């Protein structure tokens, strides 16, 4: 499987990865110009944390080998796909218990901001047939994809 690697020392907090993710998951938009940045439905699946020294730490879903989120899922919505290795989330199956948010040891997951009815979860841009949008848009190569 592939995984997004992180070189935190290179991240300078420009949030391009957030913008790229928002766009990739906004149906019908083909560029950043299609985004309404005050639309609460616009969500990014990644986040930039600050550590106690103010250093940027990009936080991206690992699609873990033993995903805590999938273990916690009681509806079958969050599943580790054996073929691809991605942890896939099916919002139609989801029962909104959000135990996946509770059980992600890195605090990657969140309920959606606007309705609180589904989980905002990285899908590796698997539908886009190319490398994840965030990776493509990082200007400093702080994130990159490697086969693991």
């Amino acid at each position: 499987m592939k995984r997004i690697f992180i070189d935190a020392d290179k991240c300078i907090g420009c949030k391009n990865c957030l913008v790229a993710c928002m766009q990739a998951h906004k149906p019908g938009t083909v560029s950043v110009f299609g985004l309404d940045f005050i639309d609460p439905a616009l969500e990014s699946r990644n986040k930039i944390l600050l550590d106690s020294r103010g250093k940027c730490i990009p936080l991206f879903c690992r699609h873990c080998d033993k995903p805590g989120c999938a273990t916690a899922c009681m509806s079958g919505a969050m599943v580790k796909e054996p073929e691809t290795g991605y942890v896939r989330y099916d919002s139609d199956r989801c029962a909104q218990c959000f135990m996946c948010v509770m059980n992600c040891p890195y605090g990657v997951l969140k309920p959606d901001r606007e309705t609180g009815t589904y989980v905002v979860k990285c899908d590796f841009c698997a539908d886009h047939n190319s490398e994840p949008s965030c990776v493509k848009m990082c200007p400093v190569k702080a994130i990159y994809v490697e086969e693991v």
Partner: protein
Amino acid sequence: MTQRYSCAVCPSADKELGAFIADLPMETSFHRVESQEVKCGFGLTGVCCRLCANGPCRITPDSPKGICGANADTLVARNFLRAVSAGSGCYIHVIENTARNLKDTALAKGELKGKKALERLCDMLSISGSDDYDKAVKVADAVLCDIYKPDFEKMELVKKIAYKPRYEVWEKLGILPGGAKSEVFAGTVKTSTNLNSDPVDMLLHCLRLGISTGIYGLALTNLLNDVIQGEPEIRMAPVGLRVIDPDYINIMLTGHQHSMFAHLQERLKAEDVTKKVQTAGAKGFKLIGCTCVGQDFQLRGAHCTGVFDGHAGNNFTSEAVLATGAIDAVVTEFNCTLPGIEPICDELKIKQICIDSIAKKANADLKEFTYETREAVTNEIIDEIIAAYTGRRGAVPMNLLPEHGNDNTLTGLSENTLKEFLGGTWQPLIDLIVSGQIKGLAAVVGCSSLAGSGHDVLTVELTKELIARDILVLTAGCSSGGIENVGLMTPEAAELAGPNLKAICKQLGIPPVLNFGPCLAIGRLEIVAAEIAEAIGIDIPQLPLVISAPQWLEEQALADGAFALALGLPLHLGTPPFVTGSPVAVQVLCEDMKSLTGGYVFINNDAAESAKLFEDIIVGKRRDLNLP
């Protein structure tokens, strides 16, 4: 032990204010800091360029130049000069309006409260006239004539106002400014797409803007305001949210243009207005000072008794002032009028009126102040505010904080009042400096910002560190508002000073931090510095004086900073002004400037470390002057 935090707000040096804001039911700037914590590194370091459609271009090791070929130095210098130009433009707008108001007042033979100030100004500018009105018109014209000059014609008053050794340095460097407005224009044009690419030329242009800002926007604005609104007088005044009395119709003021309120403040006292107010059920009108124009009112409070009761707070205190519910209207004419006050005004039915279209707020009614229409506009404003009062009182909750602030902040300091206080000469102060009882001087000026350390945190902590080292602190700007609200400008604050400074303060009954008022008063501090230097017979850079804008916020502050560099002063900033992406800009601002003007920038966001750096600089300057 339980520690309760009501809200996700940024820290505040003023703990009472911080707790008050944390408990507010509405969102303020304090609440928004957390969500803006992750800053873009390109923006922070100044290496993002959006000047053309090829952009935005950002500088990285893999992309060291923009598509046009501009490198980090060009990008940074362009961005910086743009900011300084805008900041200078702000102050030049202020002096332009002030000069026009002086002229209009004089032409209409209106009240000029500062006769002595007019005399001094005429002396300084070598202006004579048939009477005070004639003189005032000529003074105003001289100022206006200068700022309207083209950029290839040097302004004339610079030579008359600036300290001579400084003028000579500027002349030698070729940075004497042409017409102040034209210099702003040039700064804007230079930095447009594919024009100037020379970082040094652009940084020197910043100095030119600094001089026009300092001499006109700062120093002259004070002096003209003194003529119109009267000179500062040293007195004790109440500060903080306690100055808000809900029995009155309260008008919060924000901005920088004291002269624009001259008519309003007199009308509020008029008998017919008082009658109207009492019919509406209030005891009268009160002006609640906020931001720098509030500092101006406080400084000249002796001339506005009965209507102005005190200064409530600085830029980021304004939301809290409104949230008390006891403010019925906000009258604004300039910055720092936060967009964030608008939803609060909506929620609490507070009338927003803007009297200068250049700072039009989205929610505000524009009632442009012009001298000709002042009667009608002022009456309209008064009627609308009374209507707002009637409509909102009882309909919105009160949330007062009467214990906030203090009643005995020393105010009214100026280059004249301080000298008079010292006995009409700077010698006593010079003696104290020479003897080492006062180690040196620090000007702690500028704004409050939230993102760096929290509201006024570095400003207040640095000030405490400095006075503890027997360094006398002079303030101008929103720093004054923050420092006074935490009590450092009360005589009791002497206890926090080092042993020598404490003894002096106790003997004189003064605080260890002297409040010169608004950011405009940086111009007054420059006059104080120049007069002391002159009395000693040295140039300004030789003085044991450091200037700091620990929590600079705005482009205006950058123009002020450029003035400090032109004056040759060591300039401390808590956070860098979006230039650190350029090695050339850093080298010029922090090192090479020393050999040009004598000034330089140093950055530190830790109060104790910064104070130590101040002390080291002051000790070094003392050594150079052969002082103990």
